[in-house]
């Protein structure tokens, strides 16, 4: 998945010589929290609702309209902007947002702003990735950290003719394990679980019932 596929290409920008009051109106009218600052399409900074709050603590009360009108965007904008390229992977965008604690990333190609991608866009795509919007059952396994384990599990699922909606494999709690989360297109996954356990893998979820029901 590349940034281009999930970015918003209708970007609302602001000119460095616009007033902070104008920037506030733009954000409010479009229900957004960041504005790339551009001159003729070239990115020179970014301004967020946070930046504005810091310049005028009483913005909400509207006590200082003078200040808001007289302060220009270029006076308070962030000049160091973290950006991504349309062909970057989504993971790269997620990593930048996470590491630099920013709410959004302008997407820049050949010096021009061609899109914008926000924290929420990244989260939404991840939710779609994990397949949370399709009916399915959740299966969580702990596998030995060695080659062939995913194939072994996938083989079992395949033998049951069940479709895998999504699969997530990541390092487990211990060095010698991996955790595998599968979303399966099936209501009844008991037989799959049985076969996976017979293969010697540990099923973390669903929890197997304690056998103390029938006394």
């Amino acid at each position, binding site marked *: 998945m590349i940034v281009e596929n999930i970015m918003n290409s209708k970007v609302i920008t602001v000119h460095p010589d616009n007033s902070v009051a104008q920037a506030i109106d733009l954000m409010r009218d479009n229900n957004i929290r960041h504005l790339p600052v551009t001159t003729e399409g070239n990115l020179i900074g970014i301004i967020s609702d946070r930046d504005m709050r810091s310049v005028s603590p009483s913005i909400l009360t509207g006590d200082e309209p003078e200040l808001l009108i007289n302060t220009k965007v270029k006076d308070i904008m962030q000049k160091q902007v973290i950006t991504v390229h349309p062909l970057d992977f989504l993971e790269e965008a997620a990593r930048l947002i996470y590491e630099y604690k920013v709410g959004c990333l302008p997407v820049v190609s050949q010096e021009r702003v061609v899109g914008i991608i926000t924290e929420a866009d990244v989260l939404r795509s991840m939710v779609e990735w994990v397949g949370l*919007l399709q009916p*399915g*059952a*959740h299966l969580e396994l702990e596998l030995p950290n060695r080659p062939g384990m995913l194939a072994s599990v996938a083989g079992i699922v395949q033998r049951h003719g069940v479709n895998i909606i999504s699969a997530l494999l990541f390092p487990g709690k211990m060095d010698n394990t991996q955790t595998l989360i599968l979303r399966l297109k099936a*209501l009844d996954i008991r037989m799959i679980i049985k076969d996976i356990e017979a293969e010697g893998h540990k099923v973390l979820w669903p929890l197997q019932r304690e056998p103390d029901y029938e006394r």
Partner: protein
Amino acid sequence: MSGKAVFVYHPDLEKYYFKPEHPFNPTRLRITVSLLQELGLLKENDIVTPRLASMEELLLAHDQDYIRAVEKLSNNCFEEEGLFFGIGTEDNPAFSDMHWASSLVVGATLTAGEEIMEGRADHAVSIAGGLHHAGRRQASGFCIYNDINVAIRYLCHKYHIRVFYIDTDAHHGDGVQWEFYEDPNVLTVSFHESGRFLFPGTGWLNERGKKEGYGYCVNVPLEPFTDDNSFLECFREVVPPLIEAFQPDLIISQNGCDGHFYDSLTHINLSISAFQEIPRLVHQLAHAFSGGKWLAVGGGGYDPFRVVARAWVLLWAEAAGLNVKGNIPLSWQKKWQKISPCTVPQTLFDSPEVSLSVPRCQEIAEKNFRAASQAVQDTLIVLNKYI
């Protein structure tokens, strides 16, 4: 408090049968009827024969190409194209006469609805119905056609009514929810094991309906190992105030009983008593708010001998206003022990000795109750604004 009740049934409904070893086994219908008869709770004139749903009726809640595919797969179960519609999987294998049998299930629920709306009965029970996972063009979770969706669409259209739908199957009633997601005339409430743990993985608190229908969809996701007390506490917190505010013309309840502790497909820990108490509450609410009009359908339930038969006997007894005694006739035990993989029960209720030691039971109840309170809040605001 009671009204006239009818039981919509015909042995042909047992033809909704995927294959041997499949958990959704129509034996559960036969043994339920058998237990009702042995207990003397079901008389010949209580029973109404279901009609077949027509193509036109199916089209109210399904796409034409989907129905065509189901028809085609009924004759040749090995068509590849089924997979596109969710048929031919281990959950939903094609079977011969699938279209006919599924149409009869839909017809049974339609018949039940008509008995009520035409004034021939106050309550109608269609235990073969309750196929709440099927989508417009998707078989899912053992459900081919969604009898509930077709019936609601049909009844709303024909009688201009507003419907309150309560789903207490352990699985989220996703098919019904999505069909009426934007419709303020149908309020859907589903109690189910949280999607974190169980198919279909939806039914979150924040699924509340859309557009006109915002607020008219309520979900109460429950923790694994939820017991009777917690379940009923949540039910009482949510359902009565919503019904009172919504003032429905008809209440439809889906009575899946796979939340019983014997059911191996889910992790909810209800006892048989819960399956008496739930219909009892619905019954009372119907008399208080919908002129007695109550349509009850079946649903999930994968332990036929120890759970389904007993749960649905209690459902019918409640609808028909009949008292039930504690023992299961020996004749029934003898007859069915032959094909039961486990010891068939001797009593209608679970003995208290089969108590379940559930760790963190208090925490579970707390978490469930918080979900229930949140679930009901927003909808009450919406309902009180418009009514």
